[in-house]
């Protein structure tokens, strides 16, 4: 049974066999009330949290907190790969618009093409002409750049401002690993793409 726990923990991202073992034994020795709370949170999260119908960020209702917030600008959409990136960008407090979560990046090796991302949904959001700027905030690595280049071309005929985060982010990395200051600066210094 303990081994089952270790195996399950070991399947989580970023947790190797040694860490899995450490966490398992920590849980076994922990206060039962603490473990109870963890179990409850896990269950609630699994039941309640889903994806926003508009932007595909994590949400607790049909729409996410950001899409529901009337103070957020409807004229700017920041396009990211994952919900994790929303969290990273929110920490910088630079951005007051809305997001669109693609659900990945174009990567032929992994069998991910444009059709596998939420690009049609993005185009649909642009149909009413309310959006003025699209900020392409895909990761500063090969597949992120390819995705940004693809979108830039797709959007080039729509009369929008299409911008990309400034370079200066650690190349080849993920947005989520960039510190707030660097990411904030990259956001502020975003450049206009003329695809």
């Amino acid at each position, binding site marked *: 049974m303990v081994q089952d726990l270790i195996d399950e923990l070991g399947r989580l991202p970023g947790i190797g066999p040694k860490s899995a073992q450490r966490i398992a034994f920590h849980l076994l020795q922990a206060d039962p009330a603490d473990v109870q709370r963890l179990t409850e949170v896990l269950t609630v999260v699994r039941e309640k949290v889903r994806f926003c119908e508009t932007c595909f960020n994590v949400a607790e209702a049909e729409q996410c907190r950001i899409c529901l917030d009337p103070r957020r600008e409807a004229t700017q959409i920041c396009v990211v790969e994952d919900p994790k990136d929303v969290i990273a960008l929110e920490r910088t407090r630079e951005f007051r618009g809305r997001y669109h979560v693609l659900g990945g990046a*174009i*990567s*032929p*090796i992994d*069998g991910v*093409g*444009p*059709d596998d991302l939420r690009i049609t949904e993005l185009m649909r959001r642009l149909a009413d002409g309310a959006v003025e700027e699209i900020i392409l905030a895909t990761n500063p690595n*090969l*597949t992120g*750049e*390819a995705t940004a*280049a*693809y979108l830039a*071309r*797709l959007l080039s005929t729509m009369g929008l401002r299409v911008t990309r985060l400034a370079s200066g982010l650690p190349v080849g990395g993920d947005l989520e690993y960039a510190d707030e200051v660097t990411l904030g600066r990259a956001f502020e210094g975003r450049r206009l793409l003329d695809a």
Partner: protein
Amino acid sequence: MFLRHLSLVDFRSYPSAEVELEPGITTFVGLNGQGKTNLVEAVGYVAGLSSHRVSQDAPLVRAGAQQAIIRAAVVRDGREQLVELEINPGRANRARLGRSPLTRPRDVLGTVRTVLFAPEDLALVKGDPSERRRFLDELLIARQPRWAAARSDYDKILKQRNALLKSAMPVLRKGSRRRTDRDPEELERALHTLDVWNGHLAEVGSSLLYARLRLLRDLLPYLAKAYDEVSAGRGAAQATYRSSLHEEVATQIAGGDVPEQDALRQAMHASFEQVREQEVERGVTLVGPHRDDLVLQLGDLPAKGYASHGESWSFALGLRLAAFQLLRSDLGTDPVLVLDDVFAELDAGRRERLAAMVGDAEQVLVTAAVADDVPATLTGRTFHVTLGEVSREPD
């Protein structure tokens, strides 16, 4: 620069080895299979993060061990630096410079520079184009380590583009049976995605090609001179770059021109257009630095298929010696010159001339199975290598 100390743990046949080195010439002597090449292979690995013998890391770790460690103390302009490499097959390797761990092992490139000649180098003349591309790219990186990143980016983009060509084949293929009921939007998306990867590949590919061409331009005079010296005037060694770009540019490049990088990028785009159908048919990228070759010539004849064994050997040696001279003039310090088993294959005259040519290098590491094969003029310290034991012969 010179290596002052080399330390191995579970590298190849060595459970552990500590070798104290000095500037000048050092010869490692021992019977076949005793570990001479293993030792200098470690030196090459510290400098270039790859072995001259194998493309995978697994054989570098002593059978039964989990990881290998190479430590080297290198002295340049009187300043000593410590490099440590941990080779972990199947996992990420790790590197340290002094006391600081490096984020990427790649960042260690440039600390130790070597030029290594080994019997495997015969493949530079007789082998596939990939051998000669590797020669150029490794030299490019030895000269300017930042090219390692571009080189690795290029490979990644290439893999992505090939994967795309394969997966999009049914959509892109002309005259396929389903052509009439092909979804035009699907075709558009496929072409559009291909364009994105074309852009990436042309960007990195043209910069790599441009760098190779400039490198070659700088290298050629040294090559002619080195071959001339080794062979005592027995032929002119030449090399021309054979590009996979469309004919016009390829001809220009073969003629020794180095077009601007912008022109190369455009030529790559134009070439993609030309070969689109073939690429889609075969599912591989047919244009770019990964399809190029370096054509070696001796006098009026191609070296490959014509040169004798000794001539081929001398040509390969000439390429390495030219690399040494180029790095020497570029870096303002000598790379460590490694000559693995070079003398056994040369005639007496070539041996003597080679010895004379390398005598003034800051540090030369020589290996030989038969001590007498090494010309007496190449005097230096001798180490005996026996079953993984390296011991210095008293002076």
